[in-house]
């Protein structure tokens, strides 16, 4: 069932409109950029609540397509997958925006920071709502452009180098998508997302080209933003950005846009039927990415870099579930978009709180910090437990479904990979907790206070959400189940 709802233009456009108002108003009044960024985040969230309500009733929320020219059109349509992603992103945006108020205090160029931070929200909504490959591609490219000023926020040599790397990686990936798009259009004559994929990919393709050759373009193209090993090196470099940016963009919006787009490509462009023929090869690449990310994470001494490598490994989980192309794998993968998003954002926000209070970024400098910042580090410990996937936390639920999906696909080896990776996750996260709580801190650490309230409250709220997503995992699974039959 289709439901036309013009309101869904608003989440995409509102942040941009807010930007214009923000720039005008902030010249006259102080802190206007904060008012506008939080207002647009809240409004976008409210609209997404409405959207997800209609979607859970079985409707597909859409607006009529906006014809760009005779072969391309901008079209928004929200199904269950898109609604979930949009809901998740807009919810977290509120908390991280509030957190940014505290974190950015005293930093330079706040107006630019909040302006682009808010614009990214609209672009992420565009990705979630897009109903065809062209719309997705446009917003995918825009996301790169709009996050660039956030990555290079410090404008020192290191930040500019990281920014350059980020642009080159992202644009190269997007160029592959563009080529893939032309190929798909030449073959099928349409770029729309069709549940179950285009039928053209089920038979033989012209000139005996295997479907896998087409898929490689999308796999590598979207793999860049999904930080798939060996295309990952922009992500740790981009950690020079302010921590809220690392948290929101490089744990949620940007990288999740990568895996979300990959899901669209697998289920709505090629279709599970076509992917089943060759998915085993890609699954092994992803399994390698999972283990490689974890192993490298252990070797990192910088807290944010360690979390970045952890992201690389965890995104592999999502891709694994998506590429298994069976219903339980899909559920596990998409569930992990939600769960990993919440867990990783909490971990990053803890790291940001530590940086704000102590300026420490290295793990071995955190001795005894647990006594000084008990709430922050307590939440950090909790999030670590969730990420390792100890029952009854949310991380456990997604891993459970991923394991079942692997077995359904006849790949018991992948279960071993998941277990090994859980072990490695424990090996790179628990020592931090140990150092924080069970070693005696030096004098420098002993004077440290708990994080300021504007940072602590969002952190606590997100920690509750993280626990809730474990407790109410069945609700999310039910929600996704409604869309399963059409995708398969």
């Amino acid at each position: 069932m289709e439901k036309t709802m013009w309101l869904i233009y608003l989440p995409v456009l509102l942040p941009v409109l807010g930007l214009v108002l923000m720039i005008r108003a902030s010249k006259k009044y102080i802190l206007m950029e904060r008012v506008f960024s939080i207002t647009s985040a809240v409004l976008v969230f409210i609209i997404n609540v409405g959207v997800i309500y209609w979607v859970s009733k079985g409707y597909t929320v859409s607006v009529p397509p906006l014809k760009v020219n005779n072969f391309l059109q901008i079209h928004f349509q929200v199904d269950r997958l898109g609604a979930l992603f949009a809901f998740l992103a807009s919810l977290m945006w509120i908390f991280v925006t509030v957190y940014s108020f505290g974190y950015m205090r005293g930093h330079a160029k706040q107006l630019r920071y909040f302006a682009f931070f808010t614009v990214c929200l609209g672009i992420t909504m565009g990705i979630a709502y897009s109903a065809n490959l062209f719309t997705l591609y446009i917003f995918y490219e825009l996301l790169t452009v709009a996050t660039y000023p956030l990555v290079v926020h410090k404008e020192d040599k290191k930040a500019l180098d990281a920014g350059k790397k980020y642009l080159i990686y992202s644009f190269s990936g997007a160029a592959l998508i563009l080529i893939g798009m032309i190929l798909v259009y030449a073959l099928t004559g349409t770029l729309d997302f069709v549940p179950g994929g285009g039928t053209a990919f089920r038979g033989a393709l012209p000139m005996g080209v295997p479907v896998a050759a087409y898929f490689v373009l999308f796999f590598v193209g979207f793999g860049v933003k999904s930080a798939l090993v060996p295309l990952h090196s922009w992500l740790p470099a981009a950690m020079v950005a302010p921590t809220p940016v690392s948290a929101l963009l490089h744990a949620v919006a940007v990288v999740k846009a990568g895996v979300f787009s990959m899901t669209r490509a697998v289920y709505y462009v090629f279709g599970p039927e076509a992917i089943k023929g060759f998915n085993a090869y890609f699954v092994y690449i992803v399994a390698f990415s999972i283990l490689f990310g974890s192993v490298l994470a252990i070797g990192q001494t910088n807290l944010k870099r360690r979390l970045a490598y952890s992201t690389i490994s965890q995104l592999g989980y999502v891709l694994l579930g998506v590429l298994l192309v069976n219903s339980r794998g899909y559920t596990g993968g998409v569930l992990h978009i939600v769960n990993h998003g919440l867990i990783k954002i909490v971990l990053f926000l803890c790291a940001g709180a530590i940086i704000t209070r102590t300026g420490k970024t290295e793990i071995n400098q955190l001795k005894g910090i647990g006594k000084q910042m008990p709430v922050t580090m307590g939440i950090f410990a909790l999030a670590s437990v969730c990420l390792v996937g100890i029952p009854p936390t949310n991380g456990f639920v997604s891993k459970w479904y991923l394991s079942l999906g692997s077995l359904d696909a006849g790949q018991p080896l992948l279960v071993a990979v998941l277990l090994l990776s859980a072990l490695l996750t424990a090996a790179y996260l628990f020592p931090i907790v140990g150092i924080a709580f069970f070693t005696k801190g030096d004098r420098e650490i002993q004077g440290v206070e708990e994080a300021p309230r504007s940072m602590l409250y969002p952190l606590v709220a997100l920690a509750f959400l993280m626990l809730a997503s474990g407790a109410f995992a069945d609700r999310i699974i039910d929600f996704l189940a409604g869309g399963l039959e059409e995708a398969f």
Partner: protein
Amino acid sequence: MENMLPLAIIVVPFIAALLSFAAGKIDKRMRDGLVFAASAGAFVGVISLIRMVLQGSIYTFKTYGLLFRVDEMSVILAFVTSTLWLMSIVYSTKYMEGKNNPDRYYASLLLTLAGCLGVAFSGGVMELFIFFEMASLVPYVLILHSHSSQAHKAASKYLYMSIVGGFLMFYGVVVTYWVKETGDFSVIGSGEALPVTALVAFLISFGIKGGIVPLHSWLPDAHSVSPSSVSCLLSGITVKVGMFGFIKLVYYISPAYFSENSVWVDVLLWMAVISIMLGSIVAIGQKRIKRMLAYSTISQMGYILLGIALMTHRGLVGALYHFFAHSLMKGSLFMIAGAVKHKKDIVYLEDFRGLGREMPITMMCYTVAALSMVGIPLFSGFTSKWYLGLGSLDAGKPFYLGVLLLSSLLNVIYFFPPAINAFFPKDTVHNKKGALRMDELHPLMLVPIMALIAGVIYGGIFDNFMLELASKATARIMIR
């Protein structure tokens, strides 16, 4: 009456060129007014001609022994020519202020305009040759305008290569008349094929004009030493006159050589690929913006040649649309290069740092043009690449799609850094202290740039008359 309009479009700039030379001796403002009126008149004439052509009025006519032809393809070239010329003349009023020999400058500018418009409306090889020579030789005066030793060197090189090209074309035309006893495009394609030597002569002559590798060596020098208001026309239009010749050659003059799987098709394709790649790779190494833009032109002409040589419907649409897209992008980029030199005396790309804070509108225009050059959607450059990509798939040659991709990536490497560099640093080469204030161009220079950029965006977002013209022209060319 119908015949009068295309004729007037060619003749008015021609007469105005002679008059303006005289007018300049009397009063500067009179000359400026006359030059502007002539180019604006040509522009308005072309617009009304486009309306007629879109309604299906296609015709040939003969006056004073010359054969003229009005169809979709000719109005495409005439439109981009008259638009860019009008913009450049508006831009010149400020840009050329206080520089040497203004009368000579404006007169040769209008003569070149008449030549390019003549090429667009020529109905046979003889007419093509006459106007081709006019469009090739007059720019010599414009290239050496600054009278520096580099300018003289570049202009001589240009002149020698143009003369060689002209002789070869003359040979081709003579042989065509000898074999066919006529030069009319609508009949020479059928019947007995031309001798191979004539084909090669045409090929080299158009290749020189179009700056196709390995015949390009005049282009980077000529396009970078001439005044920017001229470079934008040379890079935006006159090289396309060569590409226009290629279309005439492949589809009208000697179609017999360009059947599927013919070796000549492969020759063209390889020339295209080498131009695309070499142009981009050399552009990466350039330190001066105008040289970078010149090498980029070589690469972009490769795109058009690729579209022509793919011999598919959508490929040719891409090539014809790129006439439009490239002339707007490259025209505005050269104007921006000139503006930056004019205002800040900056010629090196690395000196663009911080410029975005002083000249935000100009640098935003640069950014849009750069995005379009790379082929990001919603800009005109993307539309042509899209059609070229589909055309190469239609031809069953996905290799060329890979070439397009690679060249887009190379474009990113040389077009983006100046744009990024312009907006992020806090100081500029001239102002190390910071506290930069807005210091924009004079409106007479800014408005032409903005108008061209508006065209780039309009052409990328909307279904436009250029796309319609390109597909109608393709349908007409392909039916033969």
